């Protein structure tokens, strides 16, 4: 009996691992001739790329050069994707949630140091951090501090696994930090900033592994009263006719997501020309218009499409907070504000 049970367990384990492996990377049909681009992207841009940008670029490339280009697409959590590329996944173009992850690729010698030396500083999409709430806003959520009120169930993913969660927590951290700096006219009251983070964290119901899962928990499973997320995630739901009401807090963070050509891969595949062209297409007016259809704000501040998006009263950037490296240490480092929420509990 024991052997039978164990064999059954083993077969199940094999079946499950097969299932997982099968989901790991999606790959389209590969044309035997013509150009091929391997795309290593973060999961949030999947719909925009798969359904709009890639088909449009294929047409554009054909008109321009007469050649066919096919794509092998892989979408994964930003951090996981960056680690995969850093340790050898030969994606030609990397599209990640934030520059912190892109820096990993620079350190691993996959992406050139000057990747952000172009017209858009390496950034291909903009968005802002917003709060989605239930219809009619029964809990009266308008700003970050409302997330700390008793009885408000909050959702954001785990910053250990999700780039989106880092944007979310950075937005709450940044708004409190800048407000505190403005009030004191100089040095911020870090204890008060940490306290807000702590009280919001205490209201968090569930920390999903990714931003996408967090949205699913909120809308499909009806969990929580508020979800902190990218604006484009909410606008995508609207496009799919599953709208979620949301507020743009008075002060919020500009989400700047980068893309770059992976040098080591294009040298191996000899496709630098088409990969560079694809990257340029993303920030072209046609590319930016398609991205705006999927809820991403244009990177060009002069773009007329920007008028369609609500304008936050105070919009700050990661540079205003000191840049990715500084925030990573100040918030998530061993003595960071977010980390100390939990280490204090251990005492």
């Amino acid at each position: 009996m024991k052997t039978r049970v164990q064999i059954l367990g083993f077969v199940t384990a094999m079946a499950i691992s097969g299932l997982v492996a099968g989901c790991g990377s999606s790959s389209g049909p590969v044309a035997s001739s013509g150009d091929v681009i391997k795309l290593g992207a973060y999961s949030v841009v999947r719909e925009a790329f798969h359904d709009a940008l890639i088909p449009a670029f294929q047409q554009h490339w054909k008109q321009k050069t007469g050649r066919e280009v096919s794509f092998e697409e892989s979408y994964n959590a930003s951090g996981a994707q960056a680690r995969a590329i850093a340790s050898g996944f030969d994606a030609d173009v990397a599209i990640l949630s934030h520059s912190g992850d892109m820096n990993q690729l620079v350190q691993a010698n996959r992406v050139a140091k000057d990747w952000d030396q172009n017209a858009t500083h390496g950034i291909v999409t903009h968005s802002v951090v917003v709060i989605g709430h239930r219809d009619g806003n029964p809990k009266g959520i308008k700003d970050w501090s409302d997330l700390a009120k008793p009885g408000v169930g909050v959702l954001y993913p785990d910053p250990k696994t999700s780039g989106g969660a880092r944007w979310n927590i950075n937005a709450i951290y940044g708004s409190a930090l800048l407000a505190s700096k403005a009030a004191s006219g100089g040095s911020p009251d870090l204890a008060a900033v940490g306290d807000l983070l702590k009280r919001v964290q205490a209201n968090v119901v569930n920390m999903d592994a990714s931003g996408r899962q967090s949205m699913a928990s909120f809308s499909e499973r009806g969990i929580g009263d508020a979800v902190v997320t990218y604006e484009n995630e909410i606008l995508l739901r609207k496009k799919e006719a599953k709208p979620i009401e949301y507020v743009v807090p008075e002060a919020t963070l500009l989400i700047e997501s980068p893309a770059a050509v992976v040098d080591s891969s294009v040298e191996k595949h000899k496709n630098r020309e088409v990969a560079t062209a694809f990257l340029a297409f993303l920030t072209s007016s046609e590319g930016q218009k398609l991205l705006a259809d999927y809820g991403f704000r244009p990177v060009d501040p002069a773009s007329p499409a920007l008028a369609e998006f609500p304008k936050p009263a105070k919009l700050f950037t990661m540079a205003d907070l000191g840049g990715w490296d500084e925030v990573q240490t100040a918030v998530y480092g061993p003595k960071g504000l977010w980390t100390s929420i939990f280490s204090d509990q251990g005492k």
Partner: protein
Amino acid sequence: MARVETKRGGGDTGLPDLALRGMTLGYLGWMVVLPIVALGYQALAAGPQAFLDAVLDPQAIHALKLTVVTALVMVVINVVMGTATAWVLVRYEFPGKRVMNALIDLPFAVPTVVTGLMLVLLYGPSSVLGTILGQYGFSVIYAQPGIVLALLFVSYPFAIRSVQPVLLELDRAEEEAAATMGASGWLTFWRVTLPTLVPAIITGAGLSFGRALGEFGSVILVAGNQPMKTKTTPLYVFGEIESGNKQGAMAVSLVLLALSLGVLIFLNLYQRRWSPEDGH
């Protein structure tokens, strides 16, 4: 639980026999031992201080405690209910018994992530059951009871399948003797039947405990994943890998591995002691 004994026969020193033994040993070494050695080596490579720092992190300690405590709660429930289920399956005849017997192995065939999803759908805060429980102040999903439920599901068959064969082979003469001497049904069970079942129950408990220590797929959906609250060790390890803290992930993995290995070794020694064939 009968241990598999080596059958000694003639002709086990020929070249094909040696090659077969070498191959299977090599296969075990390659598939099982080598990855463990790789983890152990890497986890300790940075020195004992780095290892200790990683293991003594308050979040890591909390995760380990939570993992062990939820596993132990599960084991207690599993052992009681599993023994009762095995008893019913062996001692009673009733319609639907065959179906019940077949259903018991089902948890092994369900992908653990599906288990998690099923539990969220059933007990989640917005489900009918979750709403009713919520009104009485119970939260199951995104709280510790959810972890125990998930562990109970994935380890459901272990206790039953350990006890059932022993009950089937049990010589009922002793029970009958006890009954003729005037012992009540309960006393007979307690004094006569249960002691013979103990080794099987311990085995079932050990197997479920070992299984629960590493459970990831179902727990990540139901636990809530909150540090110092509902983050079990496998979830902690996953988070540390994903956020680039390789040392923390490896060190805590090694502790978890040592725990599982400890359970397995204990079971092996225990079975050897109780096995009638070679219990001297």
